[in-house]
């Protein structure tokens, strides 16, 4: 009888590295950056121990790391990489190249402030500012979820042929140690079929990729890319349902917590979900009709699901640990757009909380929820510390 999993004490980064290992990537181009580096170190340690059969490329930059990921993927092998913050910024052009080539790369991005000034703190602006690069995006709240999501990400990426970014935040998740159930290899081998892409760079096949196209071809290509992204929502739900069958753990593309009859629903992503869950539990115990909605899948944004779930809810409070000047909070903006014109839609309060890594404890979230119940709703995101 198989053990099915091993309980291990792991930080979020090491949990993600175990997820990558279990997916059996063949080429892993990497470049260190705080706070991602422990992922790289765990992967190279696995290789040194002979626990992973992968070709590791120690690149000179994230730009080259992503360049190598793309071509290795297009040559027909599963690839993995990880980065954070400025590393992701340096990859920007290559992120578009990856999705354009429909290379099913899986990358972990550890959310960290982007400069200047210099900082190392949890903030999701790095990956959220890459939302238009054609990558599927997941946000995780703890190491277990990161491990599970990395494996699911391969299933989704290879199903729809799009790259996937899996996020967790600096230190709160990346360096926090928790008990993680690491599934047995045979579980993952059953879940994840071998990577066998329909197109690849191979002289026997003779197909090329990337050279000049005319306007009509470019139009058609972008349209097809959009169709792949549209399919990713179903694929993500299917991947999660299957993972639940294999391991008992499922997350949904969104999660509703105590949302029934809620007069106010708190909506957030990443590590703040755990804090908000604590706050909502306490408020419910105090008789305040508050619920929590976690957005796990940010790209594609689950618009129809959110419209259905939030119909008839009087108020929502979006907590954004991210900020773009002129935009406000990304999740706030996305949600306003998603719910536009919704019959009996909620008033949407957008609060910038935890930007730059400032601490947002459960008591803070409870007081913000009280603000929402008392305050007028502003169209713009509001700074709330």
């Amino acid at each position, binding site marked *: 009888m198989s053990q099915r999993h091993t309980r291990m004490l792991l930080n979020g980064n090491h949990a993600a590295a175990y997820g990558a290992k279990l997916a059996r990537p063949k080429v892993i181009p990497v470049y260190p950056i705080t706070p991602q580096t422990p992922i790289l170190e765990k992967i190279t340690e696995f290789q040194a121990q002979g626990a992973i059969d992968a070709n590791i490329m120690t690149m000179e930059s994230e*730009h080259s790391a992503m360049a190598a990921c793309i*071509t290795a993927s297009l040559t027909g092998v599963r690839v993995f990489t990880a980065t954070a913050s400025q590393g992701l910024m340096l990859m920007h052009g290559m992120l578009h*190249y990856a999705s354009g080539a429909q290379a099913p790369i899986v990358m972990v991005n550890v959310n960290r402030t982007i400069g200047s000034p210099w900082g190392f703190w949890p903030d999701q602006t790095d990956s959220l500012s890459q939302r238009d690069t054609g990558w599927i995006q997941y946000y995780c709240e703890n190491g277990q979820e990161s491990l599970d999501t990395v494996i699911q990400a391969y299933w989704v990426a290879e199903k729809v042929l799009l790259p996937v970014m899996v996020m967790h935040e600096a230190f709160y998740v990346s360096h926090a140690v928790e008990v993680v159930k690491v599934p047995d290899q045979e579980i993952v081998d059953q879940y994840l079929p071998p990577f066998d892409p329909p197109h690849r760079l191979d002289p026997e096949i003779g197909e*090329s990729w990337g*050279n*000049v196209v005319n306007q009509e071809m470019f139009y058609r290509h972008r349209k097809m890319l959009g169709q792949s992204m549209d399919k990713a929502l179903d694929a993500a739900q299917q991947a999660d349902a299957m993972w639940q069958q294999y391991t008992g753990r499922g997350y949904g593309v969104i999660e509703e917590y105590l949302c029934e009859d809620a007069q106010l629903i708190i909506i957030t992503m990443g590590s703040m979900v755990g804090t908000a869950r604590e706050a909502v539990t306490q408020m419910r115990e105090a008789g305040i009709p508050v619920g929590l909605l976690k957005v796990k899948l940010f790209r594609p944004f689950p618009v129809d699901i959110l419209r259905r779930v939030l119909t008839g809810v009087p108020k929502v409070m979006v907590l954004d640990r991210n900020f773009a000047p002129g935009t406000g909070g990304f999740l706030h903006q996305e949600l306003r757009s998603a719910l536009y014109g919704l019959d009996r839609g909620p008033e949407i309060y957008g609060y910038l909380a935890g930007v730059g890594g400032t601490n947002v404890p459960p008591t803070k979230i409870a007081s913000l929820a009280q603000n929402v119940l008392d305050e007028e709703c502003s169209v713009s995101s509001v700074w709330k510390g």
Partner: protein
Amino acid sequence: MFSFFSLEGVIIMPYEFAEEKIFCSGHHACPGCNAALAIRYIVNTLGKNTIAVVPPSCIAIISGPQPLSSMRIPVYQTTLEASAASAAGIKRALVTQGKDHINVVAMAGDGGTYDIGFQSLSSAAERNEDIIYICLDNEGYMNTGAQKSSSTPYLAYTTSTPAGKPTAKKNVAEIMAAHRIPYMATATTGYLDDLVRKIQKAKEIKGLRFIVVLIPCLDGWGVADHEGAKISRLAVQTGLFPLYEVENGTKYTLNYGPQGVPIESYLSRQKRYRHITKDQINEIQENLDADWEILKKKF
């Protein structure tokens, strides 16, 4: 060695190559293009078991718009910065699939090599990636209409240095040799037998192989349509561009050195130098002589 003979303007090559038909006619190069000539002998020598990586450049135009291709091998077009990293990614993936026998060649221009692509090239050399990297060096950003690169020579006109480039050409051959890669060579289109031999030699070596091929650009240099190969030979004969090889960063072999032809006969055939003075020609000659004094000690 073989040499070229000119009979009433007709050039006869007294040798034949065993070419594999990879590069096709009907490509998009300018008439008389020396880059197309080089690509023909490079890919036809590497053969069908090859995957090419090409960044934005004239080479990308020549390799053809989708769904057409001038090459009967897979060509992956990458970004200008990433040729070496992209080629390395392909080779690593091939190795994990047990397809180590497939050649991976990056063919980039001098902009994509000396400038924006240099970081990834230097790193690939340091990791000794098992790829062939060919720089088709036409001494400027010719595909965007002749702007200066760090390969553009001293005093040459480009549209971004209309008064002439005030600084010297970067010596990429010596920089790459200093990486102690298994094989570094210089070549040019006026010596096709030498180019083909170097491609054949590179093909048999493992690790990073770098060949810089001087490509006279007819339009960018202001050269007559039929004079590409002649200019190429003059670059060698004047000693401006010696043809040589370096193995493992230390073993230097000279193939063709200066043959006593003054630099003026090279410069005067190119419109990019038509603004320069007699004194400046002398200065270029002195610089060239001094460079050769340094290089010749290495053979």
